[in-house]
């Protein structure tokens, strides 16, 4: 099996891929067997999408085009699920809109 997939998505969440959004992102990435990586530029550097320390180190603020790639079992599903999560603003609007 050498399935692979790649996509880019615009981060629209107010604080970007940080703290709470990155917890959700890495949890979702870990639910797939495929090896998943993220980058803020098409030519890398690439970071392990299952490590919150690495994902935070990518420093991807709002307005970043996030590159996501996966290799192995369920690669396409993993990339699609992660792109959807970013497009849904990490499901934060509903449970976060009235705080702060």
């Amino acid at each position, binding site marked *: 099996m050498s399935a692979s997939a790649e996509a880019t998505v615009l981060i629209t969440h*107010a604080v970007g891929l940080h*703290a*709470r959004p990155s917890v959700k992102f890495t949890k979702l990435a870990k639910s797939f067997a495929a090896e998943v990586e993220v980058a803020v530029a098409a030519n890398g550097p690439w970071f392990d999408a299952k*490590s919150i*320390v690495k994902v*935070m180190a990518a420093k991807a*603020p709002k307005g970043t085009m996030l590159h996501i790639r996966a290799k192995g079992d369920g690669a396409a599903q993993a990339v699609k699920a992660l792109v959807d999560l970013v497009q849904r603003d990490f499901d934060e609007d509903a449970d*976060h*809109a009235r705080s702060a």
Partner: protein
Amino acid sequence: MRIDGIPASPGYAEGPLFDLDQPPAGYEAKTGAAEEKAALEGAIGRAVGRLAALIETADGDAAGILEFHIAMLEDDALSGPAFAAIGSGQAADAAWRAALDGEIAGYEASDQDYFRARAADLRDIRDQVLRALSEDSAPAPPPGAILYGEDIAPTRFLETDWSKGGGIALKRGSAASHVAMLARSRGVPMVVGLDIPAGPLTGAALLDAERGGIVFSPSPAETETFRQSASSFAGRQGAARTFLTEPAVTKAGTTVRVQVNIAYPSDVDGIDISTCDGVGLMRTEFLFGKTLPDEETQYHAYRKVLEWAGDKPVTIRTVDAGGDKPVPGFTVKETNPFLGLRGIRLSLARRDIFRVQIRALLRAAIHGNLKVMFPMIATPDEYSQAAALFAGEQAALAAQGVAHRLPPLGIMVEVPSVALAPEAFADVAFFSIGSNDLTQYVMAAARDNAAVAHLNSIRHPAVLRLIAAVAAFGQEKGIPVSLCGDAGGDPAAIPALLEAGLRDLSVAPAQLAMAKAAIADVPV
């Protein structure tokens, strides 16, 4: 002795001082690398367990922060360098501290406020494990204490009993930190950026987190003044709670629309849409920072606010750069910028940049109840040119099959020529009075010059007469008129504005409740 700082969560606290920076007890080194590794593993496990227990009693925001801490602690990428250092002979505490300090330095070096503020979370994570290693527990502050120090850990905030009052005074810290967010939602007063002298401090202190400051060893007179301010703040907070959720109505039963002014899309995250009648002014200068924004960035910013507002109107002002708001690569250097190429004058001079904003607005319009207004209009020709650009871009989007909608187009009333001869603008969709600029141009007194600040009063009869004339013209022609300057939220100016005929004000979100309370006292 009073020291000034930056308010991060408003309120007042009077109480004993408590030093946050007491060092944890020392760690006793173990006999070998295997024992050191086991000690660190155990300490991380205990720290995670303690956080998991805290989550049980935490609300949404706090639970999110704690989950982030747990996820970081459970990530091998964080502890890996520490275990490697132990393998080459270091003690567990030194290895962990060095590994975390490296991560913290990376966060502190960031040029983004939000990212830099996460350094406080990393320090918290570091210290939780260090405390677990030395099996030390942090001493608890006395009830009602003012906690002072370099910075405060989020877990420390959550473990503190705030039911007896108290506050936070920090040398560093940030209004963007997790603790500041928690403090605001729990009503704990907090001030950051205080230049507190080194060395132990004792006795009581007064924390003023409304203006931002702390008084050490206060005199009886200082304490008396402080208590009056604290009591006035509590009274205003109480009034705010009563009025905030109700529609604004005068003493005579006249309904007044109260909208909010916002400068950033994220401003709406802290506002309950049910407490206001929409957005009366969304500034777009924030987009024009270091670089000129592309269409996608603008579209997403506008769409976020439109979707938040639902059916309620969102009035977006096209970019008002120039004057006191220069933008590199866009504005020009002038000797008299307030009377120069600013607002719509600049946009019409740089149509390539203006067209990008127009396309983003046309596309975003399908996501809510959008209205668009132009700043600094002086002649009907400027309005016609701007409206023609909207029509041109609309036709181009239609030809490309891109979803869009043409919003109602209105103008700001801030140049006296418009207020003196509004009949030239009978075909605009609405008027929005920009009271700050209108006042400075009528009184010939620059807004940014303290020496002429006494002249800059909206309550001067000349300014009020112009506002009344615009309100009357709007009523006669059926053109909506609102006001979105600072005066709209000023309790001292509100009676005069309503008497001048205005029934639609737009105010800073923090002034919403106070403005509604002031409206309720007006007899019109």
